[in-house]
């Protein structure tokens, strides 16, 4: 199968960005939106077709693996004979999966935004940025080498910056966009250093170390530095994927329009770090298994931290943001608990490896897929709610199930999915992750099961607070509160579509398509683990029901009152923002930049000014000698002559 058409997948959104960016302001809103959506629809169809051809049409090669196809690979920049910077299009099982995820969610967001952004100033600009983002994200996942990934990595960063700051007259949006860009840029610095180290020792930017037999010797010598390089690259990924302590930008990024949060900050861009680790997975397993486990520990801590914070936030988008951080933690834990084959010390090409040591890889990717769908659905649902009540804060909500039935049902489905209740998709992917964790160590498994219970709790807290309990509209009807209404069809259609995927996609035979070594295996449910996790999820849901379903929430209020410090600390996100604020403002601005600027103006500039002043003064002090008075000159002349004569006489 020739994939000649795939260049269109990158080219069309790029063109749509240029057209909308250059001429968009002169277009009516509908035309601009239609251009963006039609382009997205086209590449959605192309991606589905590619996926179909890749997995079914072409199928596995003679070696039983899905081949890695490089559709094209152009030299973009040549550093030296060995190191070239290529731009290309590579199809591998995970990149094809990502193509489907990105285009699906992006298409839904394009359709949804017709309703959500209706009448907003800058509607065309919004669609232009969405096209730019989609193009960059697609370029990132199909990258043929790590440097191409870095290039598009930066581009998704900037599209995220532009979209978070979409409402630029508001100070909060500007500050949030700046923070997001700078924090991720800081992480990207490590990514870049990682790439530099990697490329030097390996002699290539490619992912496949063993595809270049001539480089083997160099690779062997690199065994010491490769773990460092790989871990640095992971730090880059941790910035984008909001791992602790680089997560601080993601909650603030919710200042952007809600569909953007659904697309960028829930489903696609934030999983770039997971995708990065997955792309480098064979190298990680072979050369840096220890670092892989560090990733698991960091991710597990992040998952716990974010889940704890999510339990007390009052802004519904922030709850979802922390829930995203926590779920990405799950994905990275899954990747991190993978082990090398005990015999070869690398990824083994057996079905058993795919099912046991490498199970986490498949589980992480599966969760990435299912999470993208239900979390996008949750965010878009939150968008409908915000649209209806004109606020993000939970006290303006409550009792909305009567007014917004479609949003209510789809939101409930997604909540059940994220909580891990069968038969929704989240159950299957989370179950695989927990099995992988228990394979690694019982402690890790137990911890992750506990976090899964917290997930169920905070999601249902959110659900009850929004859809049940006291209705703000009914209690404030005399004060002119607006009656909430269901969103238009452009907004509810994506919700329905995504929730249908959420219900069905758990039954996909994911292990047959994607696995750690490419060999298909039959996934089976481990009933002990599944039973426990469902039981825990139900406990979480029941606890949330008891605490938040009714109009009054005595238990929750009492808990908050009993542990005021803890509650407040969690509400303030354990003061991580304050810590960073301190580091950036106090240390970098006050202690580095200000003194340097002062030093420059006063010491360095002062030295040169002093030199100028010195020569001036020297000139001034010898100026009286040139008095213009002939008698003075005569005295100097005579005394000079005498002195010279004496010297000469003495010397002779």
């Amino acid at each position, binding site marked *: 199968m020739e994939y000649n058409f795939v260049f269109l997948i990158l080219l069309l959104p790029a063109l749509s960005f240029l057209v909308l960016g250059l001429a968009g302001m002169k277009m009516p809103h509908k035309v601009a939106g239609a251009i963006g959506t039609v382009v997205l629809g086209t590449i959605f169809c192309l991606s589905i077709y590619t996926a179909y051809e890749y997995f079914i049409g072409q199928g596995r090669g003679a070696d039983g693996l899905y081949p890695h196809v490089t559709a094209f690979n152009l*030299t*973009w*920049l*040549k*550093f*030296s004979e060995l*190191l070239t*910077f290529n731009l290309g299009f590579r199809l591998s099982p995970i990149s094809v999966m990502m193509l489907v995820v990105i285009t699906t969610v992006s298409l839904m967001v394009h359709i949804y935004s017709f309703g959500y952004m209706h009448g907003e100033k800058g509607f065309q600009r919004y669609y232009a940025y969405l096209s730019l983002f989609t193009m960059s994200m697609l370029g990132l996942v199909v990258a043929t080498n790590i*440097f191409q990934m870095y*290039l*598009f990595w*930066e*581009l998704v960063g*900037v599209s995220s*910056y532009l979209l978070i*700051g979409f409402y*630029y*007259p508001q*100070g909060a949006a*500007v*500050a949030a*966009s*700046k923070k997001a*860009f*700078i924090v991720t*840029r*800081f992480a*990207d*610095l490590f990514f*870049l*250093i990682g790439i*530099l*180290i990697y*490329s*030097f020792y390996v002699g290539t930017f490619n992912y496949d170390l063993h595809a270049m037999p001539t480089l083997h010797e160099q690779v062997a010598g690199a065994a010491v530095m490769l773990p460092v390089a790989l871990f640095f690259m992971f730090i880059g990924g941790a910035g984008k994927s909001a791992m602790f302590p680089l997560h601080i930008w993601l909650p603030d990024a919710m200042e952007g329009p809600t569909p953007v949060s659904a697309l960028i900050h829930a489903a696609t861009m934030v999983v770039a770090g997971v995708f990065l680790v997955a792309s480098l997975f064979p190298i990680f397993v072979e050369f840096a298994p220890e670092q892989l486990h560090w990733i698991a520990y960091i991710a597990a801590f992040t998952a716990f931290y974010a889940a704890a914070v999510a339990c007390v936030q009052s802004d519904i988008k922030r709850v979802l943001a922390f829930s995203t951080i926590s779920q990405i933690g799950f994905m990275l834990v899954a990747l991190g608990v993978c082990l090398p084959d005990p015999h070869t010390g690398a990824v083994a090409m057996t079905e058993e490896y795919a099912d046991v040591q490498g199970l986490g890889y498949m589980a992480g990717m599966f969760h990435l897929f299912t999470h993208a769908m239900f979390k996008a659905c949750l965010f878009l649902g939150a968008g409908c709610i915000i649209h209806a009540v004109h606020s993000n804060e939970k006290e303006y909500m409550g009792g909305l199930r009567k007014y917004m039935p479609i949003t209510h049902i789809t939101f409930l489905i997604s909540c059940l999915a994220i909580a891990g209740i069968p038969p929704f998709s989240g159950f299957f992917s989370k179950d695989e992750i927990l099995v992988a964790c228990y394979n690694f160590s019982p402690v890790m498994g137990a911890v992750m099961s506990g976090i899964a219970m917290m997930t169920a709790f905070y999601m249902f807290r959110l659900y009850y607070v929004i859809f049940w309990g006291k209705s703000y509209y009914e209690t404030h009807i005399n004060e002119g509160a607006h009656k909430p209404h269901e969103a238009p069809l452009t907004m509810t259609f994506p919700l329905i579509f995504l929730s249908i995927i959420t219900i069905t996609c758990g039954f996909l035979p994911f292990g047959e398509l994607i696995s750690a070594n490419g060999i298909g295996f039959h996934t089976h449910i481990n009933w002990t683990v599944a039973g426990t996790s469902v039981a825990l999820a139900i406990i979480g849901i029941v606890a949330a029901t008891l605490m938040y379903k009714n109009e009054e929430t005595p238990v929750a209020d009492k808990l908050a009152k009993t542990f005021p410090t803890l509650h407040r600390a969690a509400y303030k996100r354990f003061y991580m923002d304050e810590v960073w604020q301190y580091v950036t403002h106090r240390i*970098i*601005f006050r202690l*580095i*930049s*200000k003194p*340097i*600027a002062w030093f*420059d103006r006063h010491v*360095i*500039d002062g*030295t*040169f*000014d002093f030199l*100028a002043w010195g020569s001036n003064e020297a000139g001034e002090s010898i100026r009286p000698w040139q008095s213009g008075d002939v008698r003075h000159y005569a005295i100097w002349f005579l005394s000079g002559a005498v002195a010279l004569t004496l010297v000469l006489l003495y010397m002779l």
Partner: protein
Amino acid sequence: MQLKPLTKEYFLWFTLLSIGVYGFFISIDLFTMFMFYEVALIPMYLLIGVWGSGKKEYSAMKLTLMLMGGSALLIIGIIGIYFFSGGTTMNILELQALHNIPESVQKVLFPFVFIGFGVLGALFPFHTWSPDGHASAPTAVSMLHAGVLMKLGGYGCFRIAIVLLPEAAHQLSWIFIILTTISVVYGAFSACVQTDLKYINAYSSVSHCGLVLFALLMMTQTSCTGAVLQMLSHGLMTALFFALIGMIYGRTHTRDIRQLGGLMKIMPFLSVGYVIAGLANLGLPGFSGFVAEMTIFVGSFQNNDVFHRSATIIACTAIVITAVYILRVVGKILYGKVADPHFEELTDATWDERFAVGCLIFCVAGLGIAPLWASNIISDTLGPIIEHINNVTAIASL
């Protein structure tokens, strides 16, 4: 641009400045090179002193004196090269082929030549003319000066100091690598707290031009290619930046970022241009800065020792600090609320301004989207020169 009277004289000096710059780059002779260098310096004094703004006399004097100081060092170096190579020729290519200056002499001459040109290339600690000079100069002069004139420094450092005195360059480069690394980081940090748009850009130039010299001193083919790309890219980007600052200043009559705000609503074209210039400056892919910086970092990292590596990693941190100061300015002056009600009446760019900005953006983006041709031309030209240097230093170190 609004010029005071004496338009004719302004263009006279401006043309003379351009002559000097052109002459410098096409000289293959030490003497003519030096002469054109001087020709390019003198008009700066008048252009800033007469048509400038702010503390213009002070700045003009400072700039000229410091650069003249540099050229005093330079003339010693040039005469030294001439005499110690046998006193037969001043032709750079012949001198390069002759290559007969004793190593001990080279070590004396190298600092003279390198610092002499380094002053113009904003080498720390001889960069202080740059913030004042740029801030006081009229827009067009700032553009030409930061865009082209500062590249004379980098070009001279490479063409004369490194190529004609390769052994010394090899042995003494560590001192200057330290200085240029400081330039890169120090310039970026200083830019973070400035409040005048032109000062921010001047310090940003210190940082970026520091990177040019830094890359040249790394002396690998890739890093030198990156240095040339960076000269090209920085020239275009800074010209764009200074042009936009000039246009904004011409309307708002202030360059203080504390007094500006919300310009995106009032002058969308200029603001979008400013955002693009900012993103190009912080090295976003798709613009020339990314190509140049990545080539420099990859090239520098090819030096297989801890010192060069650490310096490279320290220089890399500038990409983060650059993002900080660029986004600070963009967030402050373009976004947010309109700072002054008078700004509401201001107009957006006129057609000639749009044309100039458009051309510069086109070049910056063109070089960033399809860099291969430019990079290949530069790399192929540098190939034999770098090979010559490497051969010479390899023999010397035996």
